[in-house]
């Protein structure tokens, strides 16, 4: 093999190793230095000060028990639905009732969650508040929208091609 080629390949490998090493070291160091607090994202993303963070922290602590309570109710209702569906080959009236109750609980929980987002957004300055609310709605409600949109698109596709 040509000596120059060996030298260039060696330089290339060395360069790649230097680049990769510094890349992973920096990435690791950066992730390690970040705070593991639940609200750290809000502070960093929306550039919030200590006073705003203190108000949000209070709202957050008030919201968490309510959220946990709703989650427990939803989990219990899901268990009831599973029991109603267990061993049956069709959706019986009891299962339908449980599904409706579960949907109502989820809607109630979502409404409570959106209310919390609105309250949090109101503690922020106007522009970051609007951005926060839009982002939280996108992240929490967007999933269903995407699913529904994809399903309606596929249904429409089928209708166009009988």
């Amino acid at each position, binding site marked *: 093999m*040509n*000596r*120059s*080629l060996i*030298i*260039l390949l060696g*330089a290339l490998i*060395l*360069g790649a190793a*230097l*680049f*990769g*090493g*510094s*890349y*992973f*070291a*920096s*990435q*690791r*160091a*950066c*992730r390690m230095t*970040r*705070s*593991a607090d*639940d*609200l*750290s*994202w*809000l502070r*960093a*993303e929306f550039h919030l000060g200590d006073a705003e963070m203190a108000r949000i922290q209070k709202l*957050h602590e008030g*919201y*968490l028990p309510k*959220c946990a309570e709703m*989650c427990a109710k*939803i*989990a219990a209702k*899901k268990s009831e639905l599973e029991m109603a569906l267990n061993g049956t080959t069709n959706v019986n009236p009891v299962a339908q009732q449980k599904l409706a109750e579960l949907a109502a609980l*989820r809607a109630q*929980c*979502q409404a409570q*969650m959106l209310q*919390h*987002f609105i309250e949090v957004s109101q503690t922020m300055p106007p522009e970051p508040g609007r951005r926060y609310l839009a982002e*939280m709605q996108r*992240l*929490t409600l967007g*999933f*269903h929208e995407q699913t529904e949109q994809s399903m309606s698109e596929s249904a429409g596709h089928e209708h166009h091609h009988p």
Partner: protein
Amino acid sequence: MLQAGRGRQHGALIINRVVPVQKNSKLRAADKISAAPEPMNKKNINPDPGCAGGFAEASDARLGALLREASRNAGPALPPRFQEGVWRRIEEAAAPVKSNGGITWLDALATLVLRPRLALATATVLIVAGALLGVREGNQMAKQDAQARYLAVVAPNSLR
């Protein structure tokens, strides 16, 4: 003893005539020849203008004498085939670089890469670029982690 002493003195005189400074290394003798008043090249290896024909033998003999004297004065004996090695190195250094078609640019690139200043600059650029990209990527990942952590607390998966 007396004769040996004279021989040594004579040898030292010959070397001093070529280059007055006495050096320690065995290779200095070859350097001294290349530092002669008239420079050597492929056509005229012998710097003596009176020996145009048979210059190789004459210069070989002269180099041999010089090296013998140098080795006697410098201390330990020269390694075997030292003289041939010296001539080979001189000829290699004087010979033009062989070009091998398409890989000339590769040799030029290798020479460029091997320059300490360029190699250091390249390594520095790579480290800085890697570190900057790593910090950027690490920040991005840390941000995503923090966002996911916040979402997991305020909006459990069953609601999304």
